[in-house]
């Protein structure tokens, strides 16, 4: 066994931290705030990462990447999430929209989209969930109706992150209503400027831009916009979701905030109730546990034998950690004087973490869905 990622990864980590330290504003808590400067900061940082060859490291050389190892990719995920994702919404394009277009796109689609993503210039949104299709995604109703040599798409998407700022939408809709609901779904790559698309923001506790409704009214798409064969959208989506098995490295932000707590509190740390410091220690163990479970999934994926149950175990552990650590951290800042500079920055980071953590067990596959997946493999393997 060897739990050391090696000097290469350590070097990359140092380089990313240095870039974040020098290029991201000290008070940055994510791109999606009421202050447009935060989004600008993220866009600037993405272009910088792209110039230095750090944005799409995992991509093959052909598309401007350098085939980074899974552990380098892990380090990127960790560093970015730990520091409030200074790539803003770009990770979607980099992590799965790009790779999916590489596998299923036509040469024209690849030429059109991949270089733009690689330069950090374009924001994508994901048109999956609908008011009546959440955990049961396959029951979605947004329909593409054949019209001449194209389709007219009508329906409604919801909980669509970044839709107000996105240039493109990765849209899943129904092209035929065959008996089995998973059949007859197709994917279109649609510009958000297309006539008939209307976006309405939803104010939510995570802050602006995270949640939107997208209304589609006779939006015109053609064969050239379709990604992969018509009617095979479900298969492609399953693959997309498998790119996201490890998903965001929530444990990295938890670890950073937990380790920051005694530093930020200074002399006040020892005055905290022993019970609370005990909870803090427990959270550090839980953060390590979640991190090791993430590495286990990465490792299994490398060796091509990851089971849905393994990924689900990690997702359950990490989303619970997110929420439990947020509670403990809120208690820690709640009882302390945080008027000092570092302490007040810490408090704001903790509050942001808490607000975001509330959605951890709901977003991208609810914890109930993870438990269903996990119990299936737990009980089927015997």
């Amino acid at each position, binding site marked *: 066994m060897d739990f050391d990622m090696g000097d290469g990864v350590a070097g990359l980590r140092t380089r990313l931290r240095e870039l974040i330290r020098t290029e991201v504003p000290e008070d940055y808590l994510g791109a999606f705030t009421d202050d447009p400067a935060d989004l600008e900061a993220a866009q600037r940082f993405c272009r910088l990462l792209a110039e230095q060859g750090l944005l799409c490291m995992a991509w093959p050389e052909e598309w401007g990447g350098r085939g980074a190892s899974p552990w380098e990719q892990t380090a990127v995920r960790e560093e970015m999430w730990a520091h409030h994702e200074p790539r803003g919404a770009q990770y979607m394009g980099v992590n799965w929209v790009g790779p999916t277009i590489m596998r299923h796109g036509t040469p024209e689609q690849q030429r059109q989209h991949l270089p733009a993503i690689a330069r950090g210039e374009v924001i994508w949104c994901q048109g999956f969930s609908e008011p009546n299709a959440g955990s049961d995604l396959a029951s979605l109703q947004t329909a593409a109706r054949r019209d001449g040599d194209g389709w007219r798409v009508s329906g409604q998407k919801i909980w669509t992150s970044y839709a107000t700022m996105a240039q493109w939408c990765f849209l899943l809709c129904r092209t035929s209503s065959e008996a089995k609901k998973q059949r007859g779904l197709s994917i279109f790559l649609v510009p958000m400027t297309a006539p008939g698309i209307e976006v309405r923001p939803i104010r939510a506790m995570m802050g602006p831009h995270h949640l939107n409704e997208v209304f589609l009214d006779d939006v015109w798409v053609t064969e050239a916009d379709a990604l992969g064969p018509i009617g095979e959208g479900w298969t492609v989506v399953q693959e997309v979701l498998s790119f996201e098995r490890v998903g965001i490295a929530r444990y990295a932000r938890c670890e950073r905030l937990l380790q920051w707590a005694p530093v930020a509190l200074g002399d006040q740390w020892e005055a905290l*109730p*022993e*019970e609370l410091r*005990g909870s803090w220690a427990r959270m550090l163990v839980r953060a390590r546990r979640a991190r090791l479970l993430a590495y286990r999934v990465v490792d299994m994926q490398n060796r091509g034998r990851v089971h849905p149950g393994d990924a689900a175990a990690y997702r359950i552990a990490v989303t619970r950690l997110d929420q439990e650590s947020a509670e403990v951290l809120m208690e820690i800042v709640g009882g302390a004087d945080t008027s000092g500079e570092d302490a007040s920055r810490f408090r704001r980071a903790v509050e942001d973490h808490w607000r975001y953590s509330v959605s951890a067990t709901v977003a991208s596959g609810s914890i109930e869905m993870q438990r269903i997946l996990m119990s299936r493999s737990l009980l089927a393997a015997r």
Partner: protein
Amino acid sequence: MTGGTADLEAFRAEVRDWCRHHVPAGWRAAQTGVSDEGYVAFQQAWFAELGAAGYAVPHWPAEWGGGMSGAQQVVLYQELAAQDAPRLVLAFVAIHHAAATLLAAGTEEQRRRHLPAILAGEVWVQGFSEPEAGSDLAALRTSARRDGDRFVVNGQKLWASGAAFADWCLLLARTDPEAPKRKGISYFLMDMRSPGVEVRPVRNSLGESHFCEIFLNDVMIPGSGLVGEVNAGWQVAQATLSAERGMTMLELAERLGNAGFKWLLETCARRQPGGYRPMDDPTVLDRLARLETEMAGLRGLCRSLVERHEAGTAGPADASIVKLYYSELLQRTMDLGVEVAGLDAHRVMEKPPSSGWESGAWVLDFIGSWEWTIPGGTSEIQRSIIGERGLGLPREPAAS
């Protein structure tokens, strides 16, 4: 008896005074490691003492020897628990389940035959569960075949607490194998001395054997042993199960809040070899405070259940809520007890069978507490009842 505040305080003083003169001093030590005979004799004597004072069956109607108001029962159980009186373990099924069944569905003759006998010490066991019918009680297979004016019973019952000492059994058996499973069950009173009844103890994780299996081989039950109509036993059983989930919780909650918490505090205050005292540990104090808060909540819930029960306003899930709350709180209390008791917990491996789940023998109580989320309807079943009958949620869909 009216139950006004002043009357209640007078009653409290009366019970307290009675306890001071009648609770056997040092009974816990004397009953630890006692033989079966010693345990039965002790229980019978204690039941007789309570009976003489009018405290044995306070929840029965006045004409049969009870007649206390709900408020008085609350006071009685509070005081018995506070004075660390022994529990009525042996008489439990008789005074609660058997009596509730007879009062709700028995004939006048059956009541006259058994209620006075119970007050005189007749011991009952519940013969409901079977190897293949636990949570799904209606799946029971023990059969009762009509033969003239008698029934011939064959089958096997499991988890029958105290069957070895019982005189009579509350028995559920299938009288119509063709009917839907809840519609073909009948309810019987069975004499445990009937030929063909065989009792075998089941050892649990700690070698105790208060659970038994009952084997029934061509046992004859006369027609007079039938309770209610033939094939209507399921409805009768619901009445006795709700007795288990209802008033009995009050006594248990008071015991947990008194004796149980007292043992816990004593354990926490005891200095262990090497100087460590759990009470000095802020994390322990924090957990004690949380448990104390939860116990106050439990006792409040129980008292309000009694009141609503009496006023006829109890909701369909109220008893399930109390049982779920009690059993999970009991487990959390025992978790802390077994943890802070340290190695001591592993040395005290005997407890008096007349105590409840709060004897201070932490490992036994700890393991015993696990059993609580299973009998009388598992926690899963309680949650289903709360969801379906209390919150009006739909039944869980059948698995595909």
